[in-house]
């Protein structure tokens, strides 16, 4: 970049800062409006993040149970070999062998029904935890079929109705999330675009004069883009501060009800990564809205 260009960029930035300072009401109105939108979006994302945690925990409880004809203790070599073959299958996470004796012990007082039998009739079984990316019915069905084909495995059960219900809930949550998120983003984009247009209108004379004395398109656009980005950033920070305050104030009030909804899991606020992402989203929205409203700016002036 040559010296003149860097001076022009600095001049454009100064012009933008001056323009914003001369019309603080327009600037603050844009920040407040965007902040309200980002607050709604942030609150929604906070709810989704907490519910996703609940769903993730429910998903983590999911197990496939592979029954085996091996009536062997846990340290038997054949059991270890079969467990190893299971682990080698794609989509298999942790594998735990439950021996007939262990199962009988787990029955506790109910084990009385087995009294008098010559041998323990309970089967040995393997509890298999699928990783998160395998927790959909189709993949679990395929995994169950593969496990069932292994020598020594008699049957695989995986609670198909529960898994299908779980998958449906996750899918609906994701689609609602995407739809509502997209809708809120569009609304926010329109708000930013309108406020930048308002700002453009307020600075029409200045732009005309800049054009007249030889300002290029980028010279006119750059301050608006930076103003939009700055507004987006400030709006996101403001939304986060308000949301954090509301979160802190609302937790004691919601108390048991919230705990029940979240399955006993404590509600969590955004971490630094999510907060940074929301601020980044604000910046992107501000920038995008500014660019959208500047598309049709008359190049001739």
């Amino acid at each position, binding site marked *: 970049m040559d010296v003149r260009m860097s001076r022009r960029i600095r*001049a454009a930035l100064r012009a933008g800062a001056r323009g914003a300072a001369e019309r603080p009401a327009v600037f603050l109105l844009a920040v407040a409006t965007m902040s309200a939108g980002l607050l709604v979006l942030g609150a929604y994302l906070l709810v989704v993040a907490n519910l996703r945690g609940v769903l993730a925990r429910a998903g983590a409880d999911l197990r496939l149970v592979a029954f085996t004809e091996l009536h062997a203790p846990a340290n038997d070599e054949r059991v270890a070999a079969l467990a190893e073959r299971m682990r080698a299958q794609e989509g298999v996470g942790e594998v735990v062998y439950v021996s007939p004796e262990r199962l009988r012990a787990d029955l506790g007082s109910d084990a009385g029904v087995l009294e008098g039998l010559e041998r323990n009739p309970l089967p040995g079984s393997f509890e298999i935890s699928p990783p998160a990316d395998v927790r959909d019915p189709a993949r679990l069905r395929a995994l169950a079929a593969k496990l069932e084909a292994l020598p020594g495995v008699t049957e695989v059960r995986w609670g198909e109705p529960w898994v299908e219900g779980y998958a449906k809930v996750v899918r609906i949550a994701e689609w609602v999330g995407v739809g509502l998120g997209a809708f809120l983003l569009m609304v926010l984009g329109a708000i930013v675009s309108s406020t930048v247009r308002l700002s453009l209108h307020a600075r029409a004379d200045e732009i*005309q*004069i*800049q*054009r007249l*004395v*030889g*300002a290029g*398109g980028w010279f006119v656009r750059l301050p608006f883009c930076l103003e939009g980005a700055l507004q987006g950033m400030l709006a996101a920070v403001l939304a986060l501060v308000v949301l954090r305050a509301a979160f802190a104030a609302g937790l004691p009030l919601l108390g048991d009800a919230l705990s029940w909804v979240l399955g006993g899991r404590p509600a969590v606020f955004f971490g630094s990564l999510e907060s940074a992402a929301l601020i980044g989203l604000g910046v992107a929205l501000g920038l995008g809205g500014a660019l959208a409203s500047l598309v049709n700016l008359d190049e001739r002036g």
Partner: protein
Amino acid sequence: MIQMYHVDLRYAGGTYGLRDVSLVLEKGDFVFLTGASGAGKTSLLRLLFGAQKPSAGQILVAGRNITRLPATQLPHLRRQIGVIFQDFKLLPERSVFENVAIALEIAGVSRSEIRTRVWSMLKRLGLGHRIDHKPRMLSGGEQQRVAIARALVNDPPLLLADEPTGNLDPALALDIMDIIADAHARGTTVVVATHDPALLERYRHRRVVLDGGRLLSATGPDEYSTPLRQLGVTRA
């Protein structure tokens, strides 16, 4: 400096702002563009600094065919053209210094050089004591001098003035015209659109007359008139 060949400016609805205008202005010329209100003076000036594109014909300014110039190249051309308007077009919230400096900032001139050149230009136009004032604190004549300072501070080879004295009383109008004449004396090509007979009488420069968007024969004293053939004009 300026060559226009069979230029039409047609508006939506079919009316013409300019029709078959051909005109050649040499470097260093001083030309009055005159005619009644609505004759096409402003339209012609707007074409010359690229605010509009002609519907037909070719326009060359400072060696560039602006009818074919992409919008992205227009700023380069405009940095070589100073433009003055009847309504001054100053930024009311900026100081006199800032209003003049804007032309140099956009040209990428260093801040120290901007200070030197703006100060020197304002002093030359008798506005040294007004440098920190806002335009609303100035008289009409002073405001127009600020606008002229902004137009000239970049030393443009071409100065276009659209009714520069239209909002001023006669004494101030002469003051402004003297400044423009001084710029011409320093080598700037000047085109002034005016319908003020007093100015045309006092400043005996070439005149080009527009009527209903068409270029007519020049008026005024013969020795200062510009026959159409000398201007390269072809009547439709």
